[in-house]
């Protein structure tokens, strides 16, 4: 089968660093190869990858399961995930090897982009990944197959995200369920089996985009490298619209599980200053699961809560981040909040597992990386990084196990395993201390 070279846009973004060409390219020299050996029951369905992310870490001693392999015992903090236990693997004992220089930022940057966050003021909220994260590397290889290359969704109302297309190129999440519904299932949505009527307006929209290309073309030669990459990013967005216009002129994919979901409420206001995290999470899960079932996208990031968030949960005495630092002793309040978050995660994964696709479920055909920004919130540590992988990705990953890393393995091995499972032929992943050419074999089938 011929190899398809990865999109020029991703490689170009690798140049942004200033650490020009020689260092930049090897880490991004990915190829895409549609897998030859997909399992039979999966052949008719696409593979999906997603990140489910929460902020402020865990209490590792209450998070890490006991025992290993398939007979392990769920920990206190993981107990809410019991209903989906057979569909996920818990991974403990790995480390983020990227230097821990930006509290709450170096962890996700190290894991997802393989290098440290850069932040001039030291705050994770104004920092940037050094290159594209694995979700966007995957989106740039398979994103053109669908209406949306990737979807970024937030449960907490915040513009922060761990989805980066490159340095200074973050994908802010959509945090309004109503707006997400309109985008995915509004007027332009067509259920499977609908015939496509020719719409002259689509062609007119395209003619407008042609002019935009022309105008950008005369501007670009005058730009320096950094601004040229920003303009290229803008044109990526234009091309993304063009692909969508082309797709809207064809019949929608025929997928049995696809239907228009129920319309969410216009707003989910806070109650006594407390956001309705679990409810919004469930509503978003419904929309996203259906977007995946309808093959509108194959790549997603759910920002359940952002790094350093101070969300007020339930009857807790302070915001989440403040509690992780100030609560003394065993931190019972933090413990409870982590379990609340795991409850929302269970709801999300269960929703994906309810959607039947052939002999399996949507979750079986996906890999969902569930992770956070630090290990122990109180100290911002990156040792024993909290990692879970849900869904077997069409049989690529083991599920139902606790994999205990024997020697503090590089957490980026998991990132590399995921890239490969999604069909990205990556010789390596990560920069400097995080560099690896091996996947995390303990979770691979």
């Amino acid at each position: 089968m011929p190899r398809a070279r990865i999109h020029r846009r991703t490689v170009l973004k690798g140049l942004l660093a200033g650490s020009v060409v020689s260092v930049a390219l090897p880490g991004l020299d990915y190829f895409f190869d549609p897998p030859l050996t997909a399992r039979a029951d999966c052949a008719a369905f696409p593979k999906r990858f997603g990140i489910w992310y929460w902020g402020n870490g865990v209490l590792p001693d209450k998070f890490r399961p006991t025992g290993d392999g398939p007979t392990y015992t769920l920990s206190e903090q993981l107990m809410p995930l019991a209903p989906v236990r057979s569909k996920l693997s818990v991974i403990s004992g790995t480390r983020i090897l990227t230097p821990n220089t930006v509290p709450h930022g170096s962890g996700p940057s190290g894991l997802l982009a393989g290098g440290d966050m850069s932040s001039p003021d030291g705050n994770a909220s104004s920092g940037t990944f050094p290159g594209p994260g694995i979700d966007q590397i995957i989106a740039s290889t398979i994103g053109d197959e669908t209406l949306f290359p990737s979807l970024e969704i937030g449960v907490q109302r915040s513009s922060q995200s761990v989805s980066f297309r490159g340095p200074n190129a973050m994908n802010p999440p959509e945090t309004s369920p109503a707006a997400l519904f309109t985008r995915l299932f509004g007027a332009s949505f067509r259920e499977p089996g609908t015939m496509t009527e020719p719409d002259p307006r689509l062609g007119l929209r395209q003619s407008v985009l042609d002019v935009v290309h022309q105008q950008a073309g005369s501007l670009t030669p005058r730009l320096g490298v950094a601004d040229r990459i920003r303009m290229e990013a803008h044109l990526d967005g234009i091309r993304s619209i063009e692909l969508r216009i082309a797709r809207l002129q064809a019949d929608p994919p025929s997928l049995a599980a696809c239907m228009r979901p129920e319309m969410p409420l216009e707003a989910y206001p806070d109650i006594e200053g407390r956001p309705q995290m679990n409810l919004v999470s469930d509503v978003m899960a419904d929309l996203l699961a259906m977007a995946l079932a309808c093959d509108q996208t194959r790549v997603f990031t759910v920002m359940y809560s952002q790094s350093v968030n101070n969300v007020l949960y339930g009857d807790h005495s302070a915001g989440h981040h403040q509690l992780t630092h100030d609560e003394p002793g065993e931190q019972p309040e933090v413990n409870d909040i982590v379990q609340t978050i795991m409850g929302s995660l269970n709801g999300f994964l269960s929703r994906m597992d309810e959607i039947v696709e052939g002999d399996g479920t949507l979750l079986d055909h996906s890999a969902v990386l569930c992770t956070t920004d630090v290990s122990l919130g109180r100290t911002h540590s990156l040792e024993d990084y909290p990692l879970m992988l849900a869904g077997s990705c069409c049989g690529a990953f083991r599920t139902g196990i606790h994999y205990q890393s024997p020697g503090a393995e590089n957490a980026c091995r998991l990132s590399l395993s995921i890239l490969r499972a999604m069909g990205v032929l990556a010789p390596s992943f990560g920069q400097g201390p995080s560099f690896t050419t091996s996947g995390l074999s303990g979770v691979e089938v």
Partner: protein
Amino acid sequence: MKMYRSLTPLNSPRAPLAAMLCVFGLAGGCVEDVPVASPRASIGFGDPTPTAGGLPRLTSAQYRNAITELFGPTVLVPTNLEPDLPAEGSVALGASTNAISPVGVERYEGAAYAIAEQVMAEGEVRGMLVPCSPSAPGDAVCATEVIRPLMRRAFRRAVTEDEVQSVVAVAVNASATLGDFYDGLEYGIAALLMSPDFLYRQALGDDAPNGGALSAFELASRLSFFLWDTVPDEALLTAAEEGRLSDGDLEGEVDRMLADPRVRQGMRAFVSDWLGLDRLSDLSKDPTIFRAASPELGPAAREETLRFFEHLFLTTEAPLAEMLTSRTTFVNRRLSAIYEIPAPTADGFGMVTLPESDERRGLLGQVSVLALHAHAVSTSPTLRGRFIRETLLCTSVPAPPVNVETSIPEPSTEARTLRERLASHRSVSFCASCHGLLDPIGLGLESYDGIGRHRTLDNDFPIDTTGDLDGRPYADMLELTEALSRHPNLRPCFVRRVFRYATGAAEDERDLAAIAALLSDFGASGDRYRALLRAIALSPAFHAARADASLEEMP
């Protein structure tokens, strides 16, 4: 070349010394004059290059303001544009640094059609834009008469006939397809609003990408976004076109702009960005602890601070230090309840003078600052101290280090108030090296709770607000604001912040001389804001494009 993340320390004898003791944190550390390693020296595909500020994308406020200038105030702009992400705490910098997401581009498309549809609906706006009667759906002559002037205003420059005709062709083709002149024009207008020439502000210079002097149109644009936060008006564009933006002509034009009411819009944009006031739109406060907290409190507090600066900077033209010592402010009923004063008006905001006996003064006494730099359930002397150090005094303090025990004791008989509970921040030398810069200042504001209400007790025990600001002791907020108002960093820091906002690029060693000159002009004016705007607008540094920094790093 060496790249400096920030300037050499300001002329404070004490603050930098204290900062130098604050040893851990990022590479580059908290010490302000440590040169930052060039990106090439770092591993991997590494650090992003600093922005040149040559191509900022319109902020969502600028987009809205521009639409109002082009089509009048009746046109509604969709609210879901790409969020303005800051860089180094500044939206102005972020606009020059960040790349737009694909979703953001999609939203621009949605907004363009939503706006085009409104302006081409039969009515006053259409009448204003379309000076001719179309002879047929595909009347190219009439379409040209609509597109040409609009394109010039939207692109903020002279446009070529080729450029005009490429857009007219889209409109005429659409008119023919849809059988209606105005329906087709919507596509032409959408093409203007989706163009990079509209969405990005060019400040590339005559030797782009190596910098050079801004073109007259680029200068006009930089002036109008700096002073008005919107596109140039016809008079400014004409001045640029006729080469009347230098020397005496320029002074006249700048003075005209400074006298224009739109300067308030520009000032509000700066103050919002400088103080991070946009974060007040979604303030998280526990209403079971702060009973006066509500979703409306944050936006009201933002409006108070904006009106306060409008009064101080533009109406009374007071010296800068008065922002800390003034007893004047603007409140609505909600805020007057928090300040425990009678509401000046039944609806909306009114001006009040806080009683002499009240120690509440100026910006530091406002709900905006006190609530933003606090937790959802309590105050935070650390966050308040950091705001004053970083935003008002330009002393950068690193983020907390990793692997440090950070819990603070619960209230007890040994540690009753927050001051006592935070004692370890100041007594353990490792913590004190940074917290010593922050907490003492914040503790001086402890008599105001997490939403800015005055209090005398913390956890039922009396609050001690005494402290020392870089050698000046204070007993309470009144004396703290006095000390801060005379701090040697205050004025230079403010000049830097306005300069950074004006150019959209992080200032560096190349700007030292320009900033020193501006500081001197600012002082000569008696520290007047409008005079500083004028000095910046006339400064050579404001008229130059900066070379793309990544070029200097190329092998």
